[in-house]
């Protein structure tokens, strides 16, 4: 079971990780896109960090926190990533409005809803070299571990590992969506920056779950 404390610690860890990888994400985006994914995600992450005190003083409604993050994505990230990550958090928030705690099932459902939201707004699915190549496998892996009755750190670990494999997979395929689609076959060999960000998020979630020893 996790509450506000875990949610905010996880958001902090995610934000720090993205800021730390700003240059790396720009570099990845430069190869197949317009080279600003790191800058945009880091700008957003800095805003999230500055929002934390206010969120911490709030009523602890986890759905509202996720909704707030979603709106921040929409207004602050820009480009295609803004609505995509925004839709992820907004959809993930829906089943948690009114919840002051989230158990493993809530977390997996939130990821599942968020992923479907991204898929719908992006009119995209796995295999098109997008963030969905990290999200879909992560959701499947987490669902499997949830059904096996494992704890949250193990569930997040499975999600992070699946996302890492998903990122590796994006190197082997050509882009079918986004700006990278225009360079087609030349995008093979490069990993997708959006999928990489998803991986960083799951890794930070896992790290936070271990550190805080949540169940």
């Amino acid at each position, binding site marked *: 079971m996790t509450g506000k404390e875990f949610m905010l610690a996880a958001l902090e860890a995610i934000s720090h990780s993205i800021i730390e990888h700003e240059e790396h994400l720009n570099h990845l985006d430069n190869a197949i896109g317009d080279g600003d994914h790191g800058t945009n995600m880091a700008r957003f992450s800095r805003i999230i960090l500055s929002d934390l005190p206010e969120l911490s003083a709030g009523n602890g409604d986890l759905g509202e926190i996720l909704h707030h993050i979603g709106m921040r994505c*929409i*207004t602050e990230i*820009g480009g295609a990533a*803004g609505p995509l990550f925004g839709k992820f958090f907004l959809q993930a928030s829906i089943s948690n409005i009114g919840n002051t705690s989230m158990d493993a099932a809530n977390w997996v459902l939130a990821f599942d809803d968020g992923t479907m939201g991204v898929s719908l707004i992006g009119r995209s699915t796995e295999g098109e070299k997008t963030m969905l190549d990290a999200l879909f496998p992560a959701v499947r892996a987490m669902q499997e571990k949830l059904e096996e009755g494992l704890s949250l750190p193990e569930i997040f670990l499975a999600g992070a590992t699946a996302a890492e494999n998903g990122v590796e997979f994006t190197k082997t395929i050509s882009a079918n969506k*986004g*700006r990278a*689609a*225009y*360079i087609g076959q030349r995008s093979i060999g490069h990993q997708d920056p959006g999928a990489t960000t998803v991986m960083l998020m799951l890794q930070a979630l896992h790290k936070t779950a271990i550190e805080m020893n949540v169940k």
Partner: protein
Amino acid sequence: MKKFINEPGNLEMETARGMALAKPHILRQLPGCNVMVRQNKKTDRVALVFGCGSGHEPAPNGYVGYGMLDAGIPGKLFSSPTPDMLLKGIKEVQNDAGVLCIIVNYTGDVLNFRMAMEMAQTEGIAVESVIIADDVATQKTKSVGRRGLAGVLLVMKIAGAEAEMGSDLYRVKEVAEWAASGLRTIGVACRPCIIPSDGEPSFELGETEMEIGMGLHGEPGVLRCDMMSAKDTVHQMLDLILLDCNYENSEVVVLINGLGGTPPMELYVINECIHEYLSEQGIKIYDTMIGNFMTSLEMGGFSISLMRLDPHLKALYDAAAVTSIIRR
């Protein structure tokens, strides 16, 4: 970098304010943002909304006014406006006749508009969209479709006139799509623009090189080669258009759009080359628009758009419009 600017971070907002100050009888800037709407709000006509990144001035706000756009929404430099800003514009101009969003086909623009439209629909606003993908330098077979270029301006003119006639939302959308189906654009660049935030050129191009098909933001084109004469450049470009769309025996509007760093003098030289070549091909030119309609800061280069006319489209093209840039 030599630019007459103040704070690079305030550039987009200062640009919007400057534009609104110039034409207060036409434009009204919404407080605290750079969303611009018409002074006289329509009450029973389909409202047209267009947005694109800043840096493409006078687009989008130069086309806000009678007979064209009801709201123009610029994003940050070369970045799509965000859904919250688009929604603000949509809500400001919406009325019982509904709203038509005109979108240039870039993933960022399409996704931001899609999300704003979803939000507007949840609030009970009737909103539809038309996506402009006129760049023949990109493949239409790709699932993302072609990029959108300056040809969107002609669709705004057509759809705006149809909306002023009092047609319903689906009719305005249908006419916009019909106009877009006979619209093709090809661009060429010979010099990058300088991004004000870092002073860096937006792309690399050799001192003697040009690139046909390059996008408005330096996206790769179809042919990089040494600079050619205006005549040879125009031939290469028009061949790409004519290979893609058959305009034989058609009457067309030609739009020659400067990217910001190519002087009007050259655009007129280019225009003569276009007229010569098209008449050889049996294509009749009804009217030609020449100017910097949708720029990329000071990028060197231009684009050529052809739009096929039929009697209805011709009447809409000729219909009255009063915006900062287009007046007839």
